[in-house]
């Protein structure tokens, strides 16, 4: 009996191993020739199921919304889409683990800093430049289009939506403190001088922390970068996106001004999400990690879009600059295809991209994101009126002309982000002298460039 049992167990093991081996065997190395280059004569039979991993880009992180979109795609094409929902806290780790295990999804939805600069640059993505014809190139926003292409001319992302990141302010608190005189509520702009006057007024009235330069986390860095860069016109990278330039004296001046300002704290204990929570709670009177998605969010207390938990009005604002004209950080989101070496699945993934980003269905895909279409029209469908029925979105379009350079495609982006956090932490923990701030900036900017 014992021997029979042992034999059965051994056979089970062998079959299990054989099954594992069979599953792994057909997957070729990731650096095999791109499937898109397979000869047309050998075109495979169509894939029936593809996988999509999506970061929480508006309601593209909401299962019910995404299911409606993918079900419609399946009904039209017969291709089923298996969706996994990532978070920004652990999404990168999940994708990287999947890549190393050669189990990457067919499609991933995120921005060029991940799709182009990271996974694309490291050879894991399919070049989808064949999806861009001349009409597409004329319809897609120029900055978004440029960001989807790597320096070698390969395209690793097809853009769907874009937005401008901004600030949020507690308007009721501003009025109460008399700081509303420093903002232009109509144009959503203010100058650097007005910003500091407003912060001082709020600090004098309420005390405590008016706004926090959060210094840690996995995301939200665009807020602190835009704040520092805009105050005195500093830059983050050079125009060619080949080097980091945040050791710019204008940025040092901005950091020093922020450090010296009452009511502005460099807080290494909070991430961007904590900052937003503290803003909703009424603890902070302004948030640097803000965009239209937050503006439309009815918040955890469900008091409604554009309101804090106790009902105070939230007004979105461009970052302050010396002349009141900000260069806002853009967010661009779209789809990329991982090179799994299966031409059928790559072809199906391309169909999915065209369906979502360049068809009459693009309106639904855009609306699901709570952002703005990255193109003016899609296969004859005008996308300029996607949000015509939404007052907040219409108002927010005032910020879109202020979109600045999309530099998140600079080499060593992941290392540069970490260096940026560390630099802010060091500045916040320093004595605030110009020498100490300059040393911190030089040190970490050097790390970003040499990483």
């Amino acid at each position, binding site marked *: 009996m*014992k*021997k029979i049992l*042992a*034999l059965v*167990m*051994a056979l089970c*093991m062998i079959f299990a*191993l054989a099954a594992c081996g069979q599953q792994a065997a057909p997957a070729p*190395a*990731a*650096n095999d020739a791109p499937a898109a280059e397979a000869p047309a004569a050998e075109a495979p039979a169509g894939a029936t199921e593809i996988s999509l991993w999506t970061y929480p880009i508006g309601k593209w992180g909401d299962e019910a919304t995404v299911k409606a979109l993918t079900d419609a795609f399946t009904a039209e094409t017969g291709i089923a889409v298996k969706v996994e929902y990532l978070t920004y806290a652990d999404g*990168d*780790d999940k994708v*990287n683990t999947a*890549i*190393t295990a050669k189990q990457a999804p067919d499609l991933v939805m995120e921005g060029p800093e991940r799709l182009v600069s990271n996974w694309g*640059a*490291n*050879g*894991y993505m399919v070049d989808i430049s064949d999806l861009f014809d001349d009409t597409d190139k004329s319809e897609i926003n120029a900055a978004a289009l440029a960001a989807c292409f790597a320096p070698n001319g390969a395209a690793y992302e097809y853009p769907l939506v874009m937005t401008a990141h901004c600030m949020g302010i507690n308007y009721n608190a501003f009025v109460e403190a008399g700081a509303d005189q420093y903002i232009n509520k109509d144009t959503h702009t203010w100058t650097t001088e007005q910003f500091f006057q407003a912060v001082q007024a709020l600090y004098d009235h309420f005390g*405590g*922390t008016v706004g926090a330069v959060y*210094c*840690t*986390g*996995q995301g939200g860095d665009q807020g602190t970068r835009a704040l520092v860069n805009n105050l005195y016109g500093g830059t983050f990278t050079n125009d060619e996106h080949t080097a980091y330039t945040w050791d710019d004296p204008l940025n040092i001046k901005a950091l020093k001004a922020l450090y010296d300002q009452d009511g502005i704290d460099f*807080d*290494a*204990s*909070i991430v961007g999400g904590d900052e937003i929570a*503290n803003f909703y*709670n009424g*603890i902070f009177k302004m948030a640097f990690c803000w965009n239209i998605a937050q503006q439309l969010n009815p918040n955890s207390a469900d008091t409604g879009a554009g309101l804090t938990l106790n009902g105070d009005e939230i007004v979105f604002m461009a970052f302050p600059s010396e002349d009141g004209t900000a260069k806002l950080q853009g967010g661009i989101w779209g789809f990329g295809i991982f090179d799994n070496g299966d031409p059928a699945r790559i072809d199906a993934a391309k169909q999915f991209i065209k369906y979502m980003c360049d068809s009459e269905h693009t309106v639904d895909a855009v609306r699901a994101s709570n952002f703005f279409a990255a193109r003016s029209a899609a296969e004859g469908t005008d996308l300029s009126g996607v949000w015509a029925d939404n007052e907040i979105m219409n108002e927010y379009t005032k910020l879109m002309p202020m979109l600045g350079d999309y530099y998140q495609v600079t080499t060593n982006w*992941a*290392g540069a982000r*970490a260096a940026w*956090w*560390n630099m802010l*932490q*060091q500045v*916040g*923990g320093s004595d605030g002298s110009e020498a100490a701030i300059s040393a911190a900036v030089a040190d970490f900017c050097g790390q970003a460039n040499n*990483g």
Partner: protein
Amino acid sequence: MTKTMSPRLRRHENISGYLFLLPSLVFFLGFVVYPMAMCIWTSFTDANMNSNTKDTFIGLANYVELWHDPVFLKALWNTIIIVVVSVPVVCIFSLWVASAIYRMKEGTLSFFRVVFYLPVVTGSVAVTVVWKWMYNNYYGIFNYLLKGAGVIDKNINWLGDPKYALGCIILILLTTSVGQPIVLYVSALSNVDSSLVEAAEVDGANNTQAFWRIKWPQIMPTTLYILIITTINSFQCFALIQLLTSGGPNYATETVMYYIYYTAFKLYRFGYGNAMGVILAIFIAALSAVQFRLAKED
């Protein structure tokens, strides 16, 4: 009368034995030995995530770089502080609690065991969220209580200030680490031969003498186990750092485990990260060997 097993039967028995071992052996080789070997091998290469380049053997370059990397040295120093503080505190505190409760009535004893074991079985994310709230700079209960008691007049940024951040992490680590040692010590103390203790007391030994001369030698294997487990756990402190501080502020809470994760999975320098892993393993092995040796001598 002893029945001698025939060679054929013995061979069959051996084969059966090995077949029974096979499943666990396959998993052990596949999920422990192979990754360890790969870790050591890649630590001598410049392995990264770029599929367009091949990993190049670079000898000891990663190890040499480590000793010139100020962040690694800071992380190593922080890790050593965590180990040096948490291991003795966990052992002494858990022995003290176990000594106080092990003779209590079953119901009371169970109550205390549950109280101290609860943080161990609670998910680290849940524990961390609660602690993060308590440490909160703006509305945390610590600042509220300390201000209420007049100890401080301004909120302390517990996790955002390099002076306090590592201490805060160690405090959380202690609360999540004492549960298992207390349970083990309660069990070990309950198993001490009471007749020996009574005999010592009859001979005039006081409580302290009875503890060190009778109980302590008998619970030494448990102590050794607790020391090693706590040391390894302290060296491998990661989740708290990842969830609370990401190694900041200013590397004040950077540990070797977190730096390995950051290097390998954020910067994609697998070879360099694995070199750190090897160094960490050597540290743990060396410290465990010393603990074994000391315990043996004792």
